[in-house]
């Protein structure tokens, strides 16, 4: 507020007094100057007041010490110091300074005017400090580029790899140039896919390596078996006269196959440790699903490939050259081809009711050589009395289809086994349920070349000899194994094995060695060269009450695999006595090759033939 506030100690004046005017005058008089200075005047002998008083007020006095250079005092000073009256004043200044600081300087003592000597030892700096700008820090930090550690070695193989990579790139460029532009887009699409795969931390790439590890681990566990397989030779064979033994090696079993019987076995010709097992059931009442398994000797614990099938597998065959193609015959009469290179669980081709499948179980399939159009083909035999040839034909779309070349046979009986001659392509044998064996030719589809009354029961297997072109063998549930010369109507050898014979197989290394399996769980090995009447080995290889169903010799190693009706496959090693090569006389070279085998067999046969037949080789 603008109200006036009266301080408490203000002088109280009356109204009139307040209005009184006071005059203030600005004068040049010194207020401090006395106004009544009195001086004694001797003239009048009294004190008299001075008329004017000095009004000067001095506020500030400073006495300087500058002298004019021409004044007396200045001259006197200069003389005292000994400097010329005129001259460089700068030098004079420095000299003066020097003189003042160092009284023992020569100049001063002499007092003469001498030439100035530059002082090397004693000089004074004239420095002046300029105004220093205050320092200020200015920082800027960029984001550091991402770093990665890189280390590499320059090796022979690094260089090699680089060259290989370069070469591959060049080839790709060449390929691209050949392909049309529309297809180039496809390639790009594929490339994108590949890129994505490479970037992700894809653990599925370890699959191949995991397989190797599994084999190594298995090898460790079954180390003794692996060693036996490779190196063990039964030394006691020397003492055993002519007999031999079978050493059990790995046993292959799969959980899901426990209730099934082994219905087919086949070795792969290219990878001699890989074999196929077909699983199904021989019982009419117990038909269900089947399986196709591939095992490798390198890993006995788990199959390499597993295929489940709707119907039981009854037979299979692996193509001799293209060992990834497997032909399979089923209980329901279908045939199918599996391609092991493909990923899927389904067969690549399958016969259907339309394409003319069999109406009864297929008992045997066999691959044949490619026909004139380079199509793959195979034969199958079935209980419905037909022997059928299937061909993979290229249909107009480029896809392949199983097509049927029907082979009509006028016989009423049901075929149970089939085998083609090893050297003569068109010649084959069919065994029937009634025990007859028919020799047929591909070119004569309506007639048999020959019929042999072989057995009393169904012929379970017929097999041509690997070496001798005339010899084949058959086995049956009537407990017998018979060996034939196809030019002779009656068997050359007959063996009674005391139990139904499931399968026979010739050995791939000798024309006179063969093996048979029976339902009492025994394997019988014969060598006709050594003993014409008895087996040189009879051994039970499975538990009691297990029937053995199939047997196969390995093409390279001295082992056999045996399948039984519990789904197990047992591998056995043949002891040296079972693998005997004929001893040659000293000094003669040991002849090798199939001719020797043929000669061996021929020798045996000739003993049994009538005297007027062909002379010995």
């Amino acid at each position, binding site marked *: 507020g603008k109200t006036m506030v009266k301080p408490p100690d203000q002088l109280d004046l009356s109204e009139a007094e307040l209005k009184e005017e006071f005059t203030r005058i600005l004068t040049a008089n010194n207020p401090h100057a006395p106004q009544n200075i009195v001086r004694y005047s001797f003239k009048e002998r009294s004190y008299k007041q001075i008329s004017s008083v000095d009004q000067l007020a001095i506020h500030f006095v400073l006495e300087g010490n500058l002298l004019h250079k021409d004044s007396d005092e200045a001259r006197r000073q200069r003389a005292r110091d000994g400097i010329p009256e005129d001259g460089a004043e700068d030098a004079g200044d420095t000299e003066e300074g020097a003189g003042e600081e160092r009284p023992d300087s020569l100049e001063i003592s002499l007092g003469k005017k001498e030439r100035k000597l530059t002082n090397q030892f004693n000089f004074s700096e004239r420095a002046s400090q300029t105004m220093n700008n205050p320092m200020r820090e200015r920082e800027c930090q960029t984001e550091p580029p991402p770093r990665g550690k890189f280390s590499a070695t320059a090796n022979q193989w690094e260089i090699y790899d680089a060259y290989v990579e370069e070469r591959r790139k060049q080839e790709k460029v060449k390929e691209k140039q050949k392909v049309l532009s529309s297809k180039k887009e496809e390639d790009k699409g594929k490339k994108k896919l590949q890129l994505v795969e490479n970037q992700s931390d894809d653990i599925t*790439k370890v699959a191949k*390596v*995991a397989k*190797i590890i*599994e084999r190594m681990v*298995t090898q*460790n566990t079954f180390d003794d078996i692996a060693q036996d397989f490779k190196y063990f030779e039964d030394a006691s064979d020397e003492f055993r006269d002519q007999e031999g033994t079978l050493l059990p090696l790995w046993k292959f079993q799969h959980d899901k196959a426990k209730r099934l019987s082994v219905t087919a076995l086949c070795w792969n010709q290219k990878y001699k440790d890989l074999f196929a097992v077909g699983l199904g059931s021989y019982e009419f009442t117990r038909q269900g699903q089947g399986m196709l398994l591939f095992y490798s000797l390198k890993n006995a614990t788990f199959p390499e490939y597993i295929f489940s099938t709707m119907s039981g597998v009854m037979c299979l065959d692996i193509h001799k050259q293209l060992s990834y193609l497997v032909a399979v015959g089923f209980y329901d009469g279908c045939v199918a081809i599996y391609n092991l290179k493909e990923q899927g669980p389904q067969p690549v081709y399958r016969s259907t009711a339309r394409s003319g499948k069999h109406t009864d179980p297929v008992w045997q399939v066999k691959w044949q050589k490619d026909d004139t159009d380079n199509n793959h083909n195979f034969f199958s035999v079935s209980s419905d009395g037909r022997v059928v040839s299937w061909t993979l034909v290229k249909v107009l779309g480029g896809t392949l289809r199983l097509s049927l070349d029907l082979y009509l046979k006028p016989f009423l009986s049901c075929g149970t086994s089939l085998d083609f001659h090893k050297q003569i392509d068109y010649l084959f044998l069919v065994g029937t349920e009634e025990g007859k064996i028919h020799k047929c030719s591909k070119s004569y589809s309506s007639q048999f070349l020959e019929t042999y009354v072989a057995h009393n029961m169904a012929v379970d297997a017929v097999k041509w000899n690997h070496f001798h072109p005339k010899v084949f063998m058959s086995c049956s549930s009537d407990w017998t194994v018979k060996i034939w010369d196809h030019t002779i109507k009656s068997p050359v050898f007959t063996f009674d094995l005391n139990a139904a014979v499931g399968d026979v197989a010739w050995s791939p290394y000798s024309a006179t060695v063969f093996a048979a399996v029976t339902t009492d769980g025994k394997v019988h090995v014969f060598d006709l060269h050594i003993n014409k009447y008895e087996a040189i080995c009879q051994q039970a290889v499975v538990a009691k009450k297990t029937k053995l169903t199939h047997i196969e010799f390995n093409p390279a190693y001295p082992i056999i695999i045996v399948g039984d009706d519990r789904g197990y496959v047992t591998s056995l090693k043949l002891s040296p006595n079972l693998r005997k090569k004929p001893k040659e006389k000293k000094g003669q070279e040991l002849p090798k090759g199939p001719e020797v085998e043929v000669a061996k067999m021929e020798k045996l046969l000739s003993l049994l033939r009538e005297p007027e037949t062909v002379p010995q080789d």
Partner: protein
Amino acid sequence: MLEETLKRIQAHKGVIGTIVVNAEGIPIRTTLDSSTTVQYAGLLHQLTMKARSTVRDIDPQNDLTFLRIRSKKHEIMVAPDKEYLLIVIQNPSE
């Protein structure tokens, strides 16, 4: 398929542990405890690189398939791949 294989390997008789190591030496999968895994992975990775280098130096067209180290107590098996390394420790005599 791979999972089953690895499970089978782990369940196999005598197998103590399985480790999958990537190209940089970092374990991506293991059945052992962390410190042991890291130790095995680091050491075996270096050894495998050295072994592979040796094999390829002698013949660049060749490559290492697997490496086995058998010691008194157990056996270490290493199978290298282009990008991965699979290590299995097994006690073979069990």
